[in-house]
């Protein structure tokens, strides 16, 4: 685990980065700095939430997930898609068709996760019954929340509920049964999660609560979407028939897991609160750290808006995806597919638990020496007091759409903006792309600022040397 300690699924492509600072502003853990005109991620601070991925207007932030080529290493390939996938293909495509399409795409077997989600809900409730303190517990499904707590809320590590998320439990079960059933050595069987976010890749490569992940990789829904869509199109007539012979029994309780609040929908005796979105999650965790919310049993936190269904690597408009999943939840009703006795047996064998508790990850303070840290904080306060702390506004409102545009018609027509557009046009060669000269740079801010920072240019000596 140690060598993977700073593994990240999010990277910046230097060639595409123009240093526009959008990602820096979006980063909730202040993990991005722009140096020499390029964004850089500070590994120790990054929690792989994907906010930079969403914010970047230049497609310069990339996520690293498993490639299809990597699957060739396995003789038998198993996919466990996140239940988000059921919301990706419109309301006439039923989950069974999607699972079939995935088989045709090249997986030897595909397992539905909704039943394991139901298992999880039941296990979480069992855990809450057995542990009256502390309150609230926080779910560990979202790997970003776990990493956020490790770094920003270390005191809350002990409040993370130590039951593994469904994807790991599903993989653990399959790892236990498949080698025997298929008569294959375990390393020949590849168990792959289909993920709506890059963070799952991090939880696989550097797990926070397991010695080793039970999954072999994660393919992004975005990457596999075209193939699945294609396969669905080809088999439209078969699909009609398949509707009538459902192969998998989906769990009504587990079906909604990918929506915020879905993890706790099946709760009977506990008070749960669901929070989604990174800013709101942080706001609520701040309150928990201040000793509030102790009357709540479980806090379900997911950093993507609306839950996993809002993940940056899914394809469908998240509102449509959400509406489709709600339809499926309604259709499945309260159908339970997991026997409580089975759950209880696995639970008491500790089959569902973490290998080890979540450990805090120290973020470096301003200085290891407290006295010097205080001096630095004082210096920073003084410096901040001198700064204007505002955007001059000459470049207009900063939105991804506006920066992305290259047509002159979309530029604001304020005199300042017009003059500096003209200036840009004059200096720009024909091959150059439109590149705003930085906001807060009403007039030549960047060149002048840079010069000032570096001091005066060296004087040329024309006269004779002495």
């Amino acid at each position, binding site marked *: 685990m140690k060598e993977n300690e700073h593994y990240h699924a999010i990277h910046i492509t230097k060639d595409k980065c123009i240093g526009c600072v959008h990602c820096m502003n979006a980063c909730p853990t202040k993990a991005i700095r722009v140096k020499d005109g390029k964004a850089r991620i500070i590994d120790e601070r990054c929690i792989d939430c994907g906010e930079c991925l969403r914010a970047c207007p230049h497609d310069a932030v990339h996520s690293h997930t498993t490639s299809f080529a990597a699957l060739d290493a396995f003789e038998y390939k198993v996919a466990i898609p996140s239940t988000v996938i059921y919301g990706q293909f419109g309301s006439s495509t039923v989950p069974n068709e999607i699972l079939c399409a995935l088989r045709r795409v090249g997986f030897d077997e595909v397992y539905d996760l909704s039943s394991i989600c139901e298992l999880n809900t039941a296990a979480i409730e069992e855990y809450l019954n057995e542990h009256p303190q502390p309150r609230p517990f926080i779910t560990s499904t979202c790997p970003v929340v776990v990493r956020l707590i490790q770094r*920003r809320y*270390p*005191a809350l590590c002990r409040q993370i509920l130590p039951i593994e998320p469904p994807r790991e439990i599903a993989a653990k079960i399959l790892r236990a049964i498949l080698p025997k059933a298929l008569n294959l050595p375990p390393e020949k069987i590849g168990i792959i999660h289909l993920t709506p976010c890059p963070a799952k890749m991090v939880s696989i490569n550097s797990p926070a609560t397991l010695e080793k992940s039970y999954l072999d990789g994660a393919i992004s829904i975005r990457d596999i979407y075209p193939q699945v869509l294609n396969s669905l199109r080809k088999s439209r007539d078969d699909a009609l028939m398949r509707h009538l012979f459902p192969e998998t029994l989906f769990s009504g309780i587990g079906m909604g897991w990918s929506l915020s609040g879905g993890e706790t929908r099946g709760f009977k005796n506990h008070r749960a609160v669901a929070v989604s979105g990174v800013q709101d999650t942080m706001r609520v965790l*701040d*309150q928990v*750290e*201040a*000793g*509030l*919310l102790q*009357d709540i049993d479980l806090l379900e936190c997911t950093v993507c808006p609306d839950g996993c269904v809002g993940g940056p690597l899914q394809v469908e408009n998240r509102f449509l995806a959400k509406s489709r999943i709600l339809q499926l939840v309604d259709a499945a009703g309260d159908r339970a597919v997991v026997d409580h006795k089975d759950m209880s047996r696995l639970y008491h064998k500790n089959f569902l638990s973490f290998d080890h508790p979540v450990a*805090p990850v120290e*973020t470096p*303070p*301003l*200085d*290891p020496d*407290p*006295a*010097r*840290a*205080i*001096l630095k*904080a*004082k210096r920073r*306060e003084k410096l901040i007091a001198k700064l204007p702390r505002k955007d001059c506004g000459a470049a207009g409102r900063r939105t991804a759409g506006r920066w992305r545009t290259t047509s002159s018609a979309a530029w604001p027509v304020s005199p300042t903006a017009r003059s500096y557009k003209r200036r840009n046009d004059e200096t720009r060669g024909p091959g150059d792309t439109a590149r705003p000269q930085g906001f807060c740079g009403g007039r030549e801010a960047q060149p002048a600022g840079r010069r000032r920072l570096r001091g005066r240019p060296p004087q040329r000596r024309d006269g004779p040397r002495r």
Partner: protein
Amino acid sequence: MADEAVFRQEFPVKGGDFAKAGVVACRIKDLLKELGLGTQVVRRAAIALYEAEMNVIMYAWEGRVRLVVSPGEVRITVDDNGPGIPDVDLAMTEGYSTATPEMRELGFGAGMGLPNIRKNADDFRIDSEVSRGTHLEITIHTNGHQP
């Protein structure tokens, strides 16, 4: 005295401003983390501060949080212009609360405020004068005890 290793900062708190509830506590918490004080020290300071800040917001007209951090201790003083506390000993009893039904609806007023501050502080002083205001002094040693 300019480079003395003592960090001082003041934060105003407005009575009745529930929209800003916890903002000062949060800012101070983030700062203490950056200064590298221990997890438990930061947590105790956050809990005490949050309670103190909420008391000002819920009861007083206006208040002021003063933070003084030195390598050995965190000292927080909270002064407010407010109704004051007629019986401080009673207010310090666990479970005693004067919160209105509206405040309770927001999840406050479990009667844990002042005792909770005392529990999380290494040193705690309270002075109050009816119809003038309340003065709190909270000290947390950076190598202090665990509550």
